[in-house]
């Protein structure tokens, strides 16, 4: 940047020039507002990028963690689970045995079953991860206890989410004969969630068409 021909007097004058006489002065306020807006926009963009990065990271973590949990649920059998989570099973055992043993012998079987179901729903209202309780109580062979124990001990393969009575006449676009009893069954497992409406076509509810 060296130029011997520089004559500083008029160049300095030109450099110090801040405006031309007779011209409208430069509107600094408006210019600053525009500049400030641009500076702020950039800051907002940066902030948005960080939010997106955080969201992506969260989703990534969920994608990595959730399948692993599902896999664990699938692989481990009820028996091994009993071995690992001994304390949990013990607790459930206690609940089940209490439930069974606390029942007086003269209470009707139907009532007993209903109360136990109600309790279970109260503990896990929607998605019930039902562990098969191992019941050590020796059941009386002539009561319903024996049946309950046998059913409870059997290992399950799927989780039952909920069974709702649907009723009504029209489901979707299809007309359903009103005499059919209908249920909505939803099942969830590691593969996803499925639901289906089924109709109970027993001899009682059979329509004249069928």
């Amino acid at each position, binding site marked *: 940047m060296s*130029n011997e021909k520089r004559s500083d007097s*008029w160049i300095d004058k030109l450099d110090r020039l*801040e405006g031309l006489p007779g011209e409208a002065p430069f509107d600094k306020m408006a210019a600053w507002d525009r500049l400030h807006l641009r500076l702020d926009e950039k800051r907002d963009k940066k902030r948005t990028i960080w939010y997106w990065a955080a969201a992506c990271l969260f989703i990534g973590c969920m994608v990595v963690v959730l399948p692993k949990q599902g896999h664990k649920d699938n692989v481990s059998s009820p028996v091994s689970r009993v071995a690992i989570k001994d304390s949990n099973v013990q607790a459930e055992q206690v609940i089940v045995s209490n439930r069974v043993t606390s029942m007086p012998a003269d209470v009707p079987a139907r009532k007993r079953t209903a109360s136990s179901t109600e309790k279970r729903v109260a503990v896990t209202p929607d998605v019930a991860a039902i562990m098969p309780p191992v019941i050590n109580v020796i059941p009386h062979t002539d009561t319903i206890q024996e049946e309950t124990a046998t059913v409870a001990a059997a290992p399950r393969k799927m989780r039952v989410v909920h069974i709702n009575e649907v009723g009504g006449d029209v489901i979707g676009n299809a007309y359903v004969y009103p005499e059919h009893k209908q249920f909505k069954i939803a099942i969830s497992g590691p593969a996803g969630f499925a639901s289906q409406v089924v109709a109970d076509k027993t001899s009682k509810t059979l329509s004249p068409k069928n």
Partner: protein
Amino acid sequence: MTIPELIKEAKKGSAAAQRYLFDLMSDKMLMVCRRYVRNQQDAEELLLDGFYKFFKALPDLNYQGDAALYSWLKRIMINECLMFLRKKNAFVVVSEHVAETMALEENILNDLSAAEIFNLVIQLPAGYRTVFNLYVIEGMNHGEIAGLLGISEGTSKSQLSKAKSLLQKMLTQQNIEYVKRKTQ
């Protein structure tokens, strides 16, 4: 508040300090932009672009005095203007024949006011004006100018020669008018 303090605050992102710096230097910088780009609106837009880059680059600035800060900001503005002119293809490519070196009558220039000199310079065509500004006012050599504008050194010399010739004509005219005014 002194300029170093303002710079320190502006580095931290203080909008007030940035605004103060803008108010302090925008007038001079606008005139720099207008020396390169004749249109007032284009010049204002380039001024904003320049200040935007200045504030973005401010955290990396090592303050070494007001003069250094001023020349840095001026350089940013000039670069913005050159980029703009290049985009608009404002440089006229002329033959590389170097005209005989013109000597500008600088004593006449010294007699003129800053506004008069400014008005003379901005009357030059874009190519001549740019080379004249860079060589005579900013003090660059032809190699630097050629690198900046993407032209050969010969073209730069030629443009400067023509700019001086044209300016000399204008100055003579101006001087005649000036003398006439004085004698009246």
